């Protein structure tokens, strides 16, 4: 397993991964200081002159990206949207990694009926259409961030679990695992103390892809009207723009920026995972 120093040396030689981490850092700063960076309250309806709602304003010095049909500041919405995107992305990825690793470790190490049941369940989950399932679940329960994160985790764990499982299958035949077994370690101790740290980097790789998936899913669900209506998110901004004729009015300033932010954040996950893939599997690197 690579140490911290090796990771750093590696990152410097991997411009892709470094760019990805840079994008993440930028968005994290935006999310933390959203209140300071935003020029207006993203929910506030703004007025221009006497009782006239400031709708569809073009970009200007006061409104960097103009205003929406409802008279809200687009730039401020964009900055605040970073928070919900990061929250959804990171929590969903965390759940996917934890659930996927747990299932993969148990299936791979214990084998037998545990393995068969877990693999069968993962087959069923892979037979569920992704977005339609999320729409149906959102309609069944209260639409909101928690529902969304939970359903993303429920749908994405099999991919991680399968990769971890095959890794564990080869690890458990190694000498040091055998040694741990002979000295009387319990299976649970072997799984979580000895094997888990070995597969952690692999799980993290799948986690960085899941961040992007979760953000895209949140955007799609919000766009279709199944998001949390009270939240400020890039998906909801796009839905708002689409529903209020931003396209026919050619209000590019309204619907281009949220999409660009989504692309940047999802791309960052791809770049980081591509870089770390080379770190984990040097043979794959071309």
């Amino acid at each position, binding site marked *: 397993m690579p140490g911290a120093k090796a990771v750093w040396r590696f990152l410097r030689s991997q411009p892709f991964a470094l760019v990805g981490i840079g994008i993440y850092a930028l968005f994290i700063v935006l999310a933390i200081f959203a209140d300071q960076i935003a020029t207006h309250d993203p929910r506030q309806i703004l007025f221009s002159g006497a009782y006239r709602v400031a709708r569809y304003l073009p970009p200007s010095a006061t409104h960097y990206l103009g205003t929406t049909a409802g008279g809200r500041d687009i730039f401020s919405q964009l900055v605040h949207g970073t928070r919900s995107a990061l929250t959804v992305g990171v929590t969903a990825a965390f759940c996917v990694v934890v659930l996927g690793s747990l299932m993969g470790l148990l299936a791979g190490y214990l084998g037998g009926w545990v393995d068969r049941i877990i693999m*069968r369940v993962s*087959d*069923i989950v*892979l*037979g*569920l*259409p*992704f*977005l*339609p*399932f999320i*729409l*149906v*679940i959102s*309609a*069944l*329960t209260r639409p909101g961030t928690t529902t969304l994160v939970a359903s993303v985790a429920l749908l994405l764990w099999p991919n991680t679990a399968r990769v971890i499982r095959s890794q564990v299958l080869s690890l458990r035949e190694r000498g040091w695992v055998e040694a741990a077994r002979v000295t009387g370690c319990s299976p649970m101790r072997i799984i979580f103390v000895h094997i888990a740290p070995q597969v952690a980097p692999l799980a993290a790789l799948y986690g960085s892809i899941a961040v*992007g998936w979760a953000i*895209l899913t949140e*955007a*799609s669900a919000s*766009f*279709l*009207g*199944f998001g949390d209506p009270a939240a400020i998110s890039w*998906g909801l901004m*796009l839905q708002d*723009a*689409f529903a209020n004729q*931003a*396209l*026919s009015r*050619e209000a*590019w300033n309204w*619907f*281009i920026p*949220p*999409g660009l932010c*989504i*692309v*940047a954040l*999802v*791309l960052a996950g*791809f*770049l980081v995972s591509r870089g770390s893939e080379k770190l984990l599997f040097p043979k794959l690197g*071309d």
Partner: protein
Amino acid sequence: MKRVLGRLGHAAFVLWAVASLTFIMFRLMPGDPTLNFLSESFSEEMRAALLTSFGLDKPLPEQYVLYLGSLLRGDLGVSFLQKKPVLDILLDALPNTVALTVTALVVAYAFGIIAGAFLAFARGSVTEGIAIPAALITRAAPEFWLGMILLAWLSFAWGIFPSSGANEAGSEFTSEWARLTSADFLWHLTLPALTLALYLQGLPLLLMRATMLEVLNDEFIVMARMKGLSRWAIVMRHAARNALLPVATAFALGLGSSFGGNVVIETVFSWPGLGRVLVSAVQGADYPLAQGAFILIAAVLVTMNMVADLLYAWLDPRVSVGARR
């Protein structure tokens, strides 16, 4: 043969499990399904009669058995809102979704395979430095956002393509086939198919490039080179054939998954397909219709997953040899 049967059995098991899960999910729907269907003036008896006609008055296990039975017969029930058989509504929407998905996939994979093979040879060039990030960006972009850009640009700003629907309002055709092959339909199809293709092309491109690079280092290619075969012959006859294997599998998987993933693109372009049926059914609490659309989309996904597996075994000699042993 045994392998095929085994895979069929497996697919049947997954379908049964998905159908059962769907049953459980839809019975957990909040609220009273008949409320959307009835006006306030209906009496208690009429309400009960309706519940009976939808089979909602029976105990759950009995409903479950009836549900599985009618699924097997292809009977998906009657839509609450449209008061038509669910199957008819789905079959009306199906050709539009199939046309959209297949067109987009074929365009995306034709482009991706050629561009990917080309990029494998252009290693380290400026073209590669631009093409790879560009492919990654299209994969990172939300499909509906790509659609919105194309719509605002080519439809609203330049007025080249229609902005919504699959046919000009009020147009009539002698048959479904005549409608699907009419110039009007293809005109309406262009933008949604282009959007979907733009989103899909990144995967075959990157896959083709990666496997080509791998294959080009294999011993048999070195051998072919030593035999003095031309570069073109090496690419077409030896490398591309082997590199196509994962791409073909991805195509089958892509067909299954974009069937359900079309939901957003169909919404952006008001394309009257399965995805839109599902969205409006879920929004309108039309449970039989939503349930039917979900099951149909899942069935396509499970079938295509199976096809991908079989295709992989069939195309890759190494896998099938391993199975025979």
